[in-house]
Structure formats: C-alpha cells, structure tokens
C-alpha cells in the first residue's frame, strides 16, 4: 500500500503546514482590542472567548500525567459529528476500530486480535468501571450505555501506565467524564435522523441549585433499521438467498442517566439496553434469519465521596452496585443431523457485583504526593448458560462467583523543580487465580513550562474472565487454572506546546505480551481449550501535531507506525495496520456560528484470518455544525454530517465465527441532528 501511504503523508504534510502556520489570528495578542478595563462587569461576563491549550485546564493534566494522554472534548464531539464512542476513538492517535455488525472492537498500538471483546482496555465513566464481570468487555459502539451528548470529555490514556487507581489496564484506559448539572442547564432535547431509517431522541434536564446541589437527568432512545439488504459473497448461492440478508442489521437502544452532585458526594445511576440484529450468520447460524440477535443491558449505581481533609490529606471513597445481562438468540438448522430446520438457541450471561474503593492522598513538603488505595469487589453473580429453546436442550448452565481485593501505593516525587519521579506498585488478589503484583515507573522532565519529556515503564495484567474460565460447551473444555496475561511496556514521550495554540507529541514504544489467553486444540482429545500460550512483541512510533482553537481554525494530524510479531514464529499478526493516519480539520465559515469539519482516518492494509488482506483505506467524514445565537434562533444547535464522503468500499477483518473473511462497512451515510435548549 505504498502509494496510499505516500498520499496520506503528503496530505498530512500539507495539513501540518497549515496548522503550524496557524492561520490568521495566531500572532495577535496585544493588537487593537477594545480596552476591556473600561467595560462593565456585566459586559465582561458576556464576552465569548476562545479556549486554547495554554488556558486549558487540561494542559496541566496532560503534561503532568505519568502517561501519554489524548483528550477529546464535548465541542469536538459535536463539531466532528461523532455518533458513538467508537467514532471518538477512531479519531485518536494510535487507535483503530473494527466493526463486525455486532460489536465494535478497538485496536491499540497494532494489537487487535479478532475475537477479543475489548477486555484489554479499561472503560471508565467518571472513574467507574464499565467493563462487565463476565466478558470484561468495554462497550464502544451503540452498546455503550451513555449518550454522547452527556459527555464533557473523553480522556484516552495509553499504556499500562494509565492508571493505578483501578484494576490494571492492559493497553490503556478510556475515561469518559460526563457533564454536570451546571454544564447542561435546563430542559434540552435532541433529535437525529440518519441513513437506513435511523432515529434518535434525547430529553435531558439539568439544574444547579443555590445551595450547590446539581442534578442531571437524561433519557435517550435510538432505533435503526440498518441496511435492509446486505450482500455477503460467501453466502451467494440459491440455498442461502443468493447472499442477501434482509432486515437483519437492525440496532436499537434505550438509555437513562441520572447524576446528582452535592457537596462532596456524587451519585450516578445509569441503565442502557441495546439490541442488535446479526446479519452475518456468524457462529454457523442460519443465513438471512433476522431473529439472530444479541441484547446487552448494563446498569449501575455509584456513590462517590471526594474530599480534601485537613491541610494535606485528600480522600476518595466509592461504593457501587453493577449489573450486566446478555441474551443472545441464534437460529440454527439441525436438519442435517435429523433435527428441526429452525431452532432458536438462547445464549445468556448474567452478572451482578458490588464493590468499594478507598484512596488516601497526602502531600509532603508541598511538592511530593503519595497515594495509598484499596479496592474490593464481590462478583456475587457471574452466570453463563446456553440452551435450545424448542425442543428444549440445555448445553450448560454455569453459575459462578468470585472476589477481588487490591491495594496500591503511588508516589509522585519532585526530585528537582523540573524533574519528577512517579513510582507505583499494585497488588491484586483474585479468588480465581491468586495474586499478582505490578509496578510502574515514570520519569518526567519539564525543562520549560511548555515542554515535557517522559520516560515510562509499566507492567500490567489482564485477568482471565469468567467466559474464558468457565464457558463449557460442546468441544470446549473449561480451564479454571488459567493465569493472567502480562504485558511489559516501555515508552518515551515528548510533548511540546508552541505558542498558545499548537501542541506537538512524539512517542516511541515497545511492549512484550506474555501468557496471552488463546484457544488451543489439545492434540490428544481434539478438544478446544483456553491456555496461556500467546506471545506478542510490538513496537512503534507515533507523531502528532494539533492546533486547538474553539472559534478559529483547528485540527490535528497524527501518524503511527506500528509493528508486532509473534516471536520465534513466521506467523504474521491478524488485523494489524502498519500505518495509521488521522486528520482532523475544523474551520469557521461564519464567525463562531457555523463550522465545517473534516475527520479522516487512514489505515494501511491488514491481514485477515483467511490469509488475504483487507485493503488500506482513507475514509473522510464531513460535518457542518451550526450554533446560531442570533435572537431568533437562540438555543438551537444544528448539524449535518456525511460519513464516508466518497463512498469508499472497505472492510474489516473478521474473527473465527464468521464465514466471511472481511465484513464490508457502510458506504456514504448521512445524519441530521437538531438540539434545542429551552
């Protein structure tokens, strides 16, 4: 895919030149601006200002963090027309998403094994773990239970250095920070209309009371018919409807969200249920039967207490109750074995858990910080089961429960005013496999306020989940002795801010994964079982330039070069794009009122399980976003988006349960969105 890469590089170079040159307005600062000191207080409070890096409260967070962080703001979500968390992650440097018309799967640093349920990234919402307790899955597409309009920002933290505060994240952490009552005041609604009979509605109400109480309530409903006729070449035969699956790509969800904040307490309650039709006839199901679908429901209640105590102490406490229910319906044809030609198979998982965490922080001598923390989680239900509905035949029913206890300590030491050392150690004990201890080290050198050089090392683990441990079925023998996977990562990051608007990031990383949990055939019995036998070594380089300016020209270009291999084997990795390029570009067409934004993702070709290649592709999306604040249209926000602008035909590699080698993604689609705040 050489020409594709060259093309991408050329476009990136152009974009970079534009961004660095800054466009108009970068040189001004003391130019002729009305003397603000002559203005009344009321007038000053009415001036709309530009949010740039230098003034951003995130600057501190990013340059001080002992990790490589990317932040996507609520404003970017609206401007670029992101429809899901998967869309947001597609725009982040070094990340890519594959979609098999059921769930969305993320790849980080070139690692994206088909069939993995995002158990290697930790998904948090306001610090609360969203991965479920059966599959450990991070929900990224329409299966993510929170409306994107409720998001204040998404923090993407790479590598296992990401967080010591919550159970180790193998490849990284995605922390979604939601809005507060004060960010979404009053009653607001939004309506969306998109391709393939897609409708979405949301109603929210936020309020900030005089005594400091803040509440935010929201409900959303999404319904999509999906492509009514989807063609799959692998099924093109008269017996299977000539490869056309009809009305099988449907998608829909209901979500509710409630957040109450008062003094030091925050309470979150969310619930989301999403149903998706599976048109690909995966798992050997009957082709073109729209009854095959999955339903995932996720809900939780979280109470958080955060407080600064007497002078140098800080306390964080959390208590939570979570629930997850998965129900899959799969249509099978047993006529070849002498059974009925249409049998519904029911596949289920139910998880319930509660837990708590307590973190205590202390500052010494005004410059060193230490945090000690502990966590306990009781997975009192981790049940899985599978049965045919009619005639009834149960394949397995497996109730389980487990417990997790963890403790960690972290120190942030200022060796000099410009040199910081961050050391952390975490011990986790799982009732399933025992204990594991993992360290992390970060050395941060900040010679100037706007320069940050970080040397990072961390080790993290991924525990075997209930699915891998216990899911017993025909031809699969469970392996309760599974051990956790381990990854060691080293990284060097340079972050440089130029002027007020521009930031530059360069990084180099290496990782070694061991004991990856993989499905293996026992040569003696022919049975399939999970074992800790995978090894992967990876390395890469990343480069990014961004210009941030709410009201002016803004955007970014990033490029990642990633390589990974299974050591001592000639086997190439599946679904690994050697090159990743991202381009984001937003320009105001009418001062502060109308924006045109372009979002482009480039992936070089990826190997498939069938030994072929899913071709490289560059897919641009265009969004026109308007925030009219003139008297007549105050309170309205409108947007029109076109995704896959040039109707590029491209596909993602599939996993073992698919007969297809590659699943082609949607062509050009549109979305209209209207938001109104009363």
């Amino acid at each position, binding site marked *: 895919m050489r020409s594709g890469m060259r093309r991408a590089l050329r476009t990136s170079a152009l974009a970079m030149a534009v961004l660095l040159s800054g*466009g108009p307005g970068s040189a001004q*600062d*003391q130019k002729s601006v009305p003397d*603000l000191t002559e203005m009344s*207080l009321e007038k*000053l*409070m009415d*001036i*709309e*200002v*530009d*949010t*740039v890096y*230098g003034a951003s409260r995130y600057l501190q967070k990013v340059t001080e963090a002992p990790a490589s962080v990317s932040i996507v703001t609520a404003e970017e979500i609206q401007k670029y027309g992101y429809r899901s968390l998967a869309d947001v992650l597609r725009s982040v440097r070094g990340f890519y998403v594959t979609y098999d018309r059921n769930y969305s799967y993320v790849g980080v640093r070139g690692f994206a094994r088909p*069939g993995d*349920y995002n158990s290697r990234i930790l998904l948090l919402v306001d610090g609360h773990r969203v991965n479920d307790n059966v599959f450990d899955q991070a929900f990224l597409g329409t299966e993510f239970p929170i409306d994107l309009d409720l998001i204040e920002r998404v923090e993407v933290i790479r590598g296992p250095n990401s967080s010591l505060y919550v159970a180790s994240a193998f490849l990284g952490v995605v922390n979604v920070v939601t809005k507060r009552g*004060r960010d979404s005041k009053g009653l607001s609604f939004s309506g969306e209309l998109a391709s393939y009979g897609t409708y979405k509605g949301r109603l929210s109400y936020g309020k900030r009371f005089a005594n*400091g109480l803040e509440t935010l309530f929201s409900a959303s409903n999404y319904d999509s018919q999906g492509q009514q006729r989807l063609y799959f070449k*692998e099924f093109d035969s008269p017996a299977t409807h000539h490869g056309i699956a009809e009305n099988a790509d449907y998608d829909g969800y209901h979500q509710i969200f409630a957040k109450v904040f008062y*003094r030091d307490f925050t309470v979150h309650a969310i619930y989301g249920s999403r149903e998706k039709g599976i048109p690909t006839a995966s*798992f*050997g*199901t009957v082709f073109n039967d729209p009854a095959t679908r999955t339903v995932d429901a996720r809900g939780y209640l979280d109470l958080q207490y955060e*407080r*600064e105590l007497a002078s*140098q102490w800080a306390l964080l406490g959390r208590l939570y109750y979570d629930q997850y229910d998965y129900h*899959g319906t799969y249509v*099978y044809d047993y006529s070849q*074995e002498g*059974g009925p030609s249409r049998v519904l198979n029911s*596949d289920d998982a139910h998880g319930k858990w509660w837990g708590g965490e307590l973190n205590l922080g202390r500052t010494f001598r*005004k410059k060193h*910080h230490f945090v000690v923390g502990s966590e306990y989680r009781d997975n009192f239900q981790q049940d899985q089961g*599978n049965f045919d509905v009619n005639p009834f035949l149960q*394949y397995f029913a497996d109730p389980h429960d487990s417990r997790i206890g963890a403790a960690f300590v972290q120190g942030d030491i200022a060796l000099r005013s410009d040199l910081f050392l961050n050391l952390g150690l975490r011990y986790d004990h799982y009732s399933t496999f025992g204990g594991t201890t993992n360290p992390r080290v970060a050395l941060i050198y900040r010679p100037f306020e706007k320069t940050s050089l970080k040397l990072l090392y961390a080790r993290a683990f991924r525990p075997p989940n209930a*699915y891998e441990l216990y*899911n017993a*079925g*025909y*031809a*699969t023998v469970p392996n309760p002795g599974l051990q956790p996977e381990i990854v060691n990562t080293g990284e060097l990051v340079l972050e440089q801010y130029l002027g007020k608007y521009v930031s530059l990031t360069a990084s180099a990383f290496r990782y070694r994964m061991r004991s990856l949990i993989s*499905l293996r*055939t026992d040569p003696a019995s022919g049975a*399939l079982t999970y074992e800790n036998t995978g090894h992967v070594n990876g390395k890469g380089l990343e480069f990014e330039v961004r210009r941030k300016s709410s*009201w*002016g*020209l803004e955007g970014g270009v990033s490029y990642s070069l990633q390589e990974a291999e299974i050591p001592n084997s000639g086997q190439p990795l599946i679904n690994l794009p050697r090159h990743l390029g991202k381009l984001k*570009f937003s*320009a105001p067409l009418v001062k502060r009122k109308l924006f045109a934004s372009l979002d482009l993702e480039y992936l070089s070709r990826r190997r498939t*399980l*069938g*030994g072929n*290649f899913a*071709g490289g*592709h*560059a897919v641009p999306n265009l969004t026109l976003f308007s925030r009219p604040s003139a008297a007549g249209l105050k309170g309205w926000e409108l947007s029109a988006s076109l995704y896959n602008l*040039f109707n*590029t035909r491209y*596909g993602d590699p599939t996993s073992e349960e698919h007969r297809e*080698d590659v699943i082609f993604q949607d062509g050009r689609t549109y979305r209209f969105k209207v938001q109104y705040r009363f």
Partner: protein
Amino acid sequence: MALPMHLVGRRNGGNKALGEPRAWGSFPVRESRPIDRGARTLLALLAGLLLAGLSSIPGAQAQAPSERQVKAAFLYNFAKFVEWPPDRFADPQDPLVLCVTGEDPFGTVLDGIVLGKTANGHPLALRRLRREQEARGCQILFVSASERKRLRPLLESLKGTSILTVGESDGFAQQGVMINFILEENRVHFEINVDAAERAGLKISSRLLSLAKVVRGER
C-alpha cells in the same frame, strides 16, 4: 437426536467442529478502492477553500478578546470592587499589589492591564512569586492551576492575612480560594467563596457578589 455440531456463545470454539474456518476456500477478497485521484484533488481544493475563506473573513480572529485578557480585566475589577481592611495600606498612595504564584498563564497580558492603572486611588503593581516566596506583601494573589496539589498548605499559610485569593481551577472555591474563574458556555464567570473572604476581613461589594455564583466552602 445427535448432538448438534455447534455451540454458540461469544467466542465459542464449537464452530471449529464445522471444519477449519476457511475450509470453504480462500475467497479472493476484493481490495477496497482507495480514494481516487479526482476525489483527492477535490479534498485538497476543499481544504484550500476553507483556508482561503477563513483568511478573507475580516476580523475573524483578530478582534475577539482572549480568555486571558478577559480574566486580566476581571482582576482589575476585583481590585476596584473589594475593600481591604484599613490597616492594609499605610498610605492611601500605597500600591495595590497583584501577585501571581505558580506557573504564570497570563504572559504579558497582566503587565498591560496593570500599567498606569489605579484602583480606589492605589496604583496597581504586579509581582510574580517564586514558589517558596511569601505572599505577605500582596493584596491579591492569583493561584495558578500548577499549584493545585499545593493549594491546601498555601491557603493555610495565608491564614490571618487579608489577601484576596483568585484561581481558575475546578474546585478551588470549595477549597477556600475566594474568587474562582469558571467558564460557562465559553464565557468567563466566577464563583465567590464568601466565608473565606469574610474570614480574611475582606468586604466584597454587593455588585460583584450579585454577578457571582456563591460557593459554600468547608469549615
């Protein structure tokens, strides 16, 4: 009835019983069509147009005041709308000193604001503190975001003084900073911790209070 040769589940191995996944033959997958030349040129043209359009819009950027300038103007106003206890100024002509501790985010903007201005008769002066320096001689102390983790000890050391503390970070007001800037829909607003100001012997004009979000701190 024979056991069906399948087992569903998210990642079940049962399907292997159906044979090797690719036993149906390796389908020559059509390579996706990359963006064609014409489309690429169009994209570049579009980008160029946006750029040109942007450059030609007069005053698209130049005239809009920055967040820094607005906050600096507010600091000047705080000097006018806050009353210090009479013993703070030996002489009515004594300077009203505005100090910045931590990494100064204002750059040259504050110098411009302070130059030649007076507040209630006192000429304004600006001082940037090094980290360990005492803030004793200041009337207004701006605490930058870099001091977030050191905030508690800093506020402790200011007890008994009548220094107006100002910040712009999340949660500062709750922790005892008297006036904290917040951004609401891209407008600069502020929260005021009245208790903290009272404890320091400062009197904030009702005009300023009415425009602020009053915050309750601890203790």
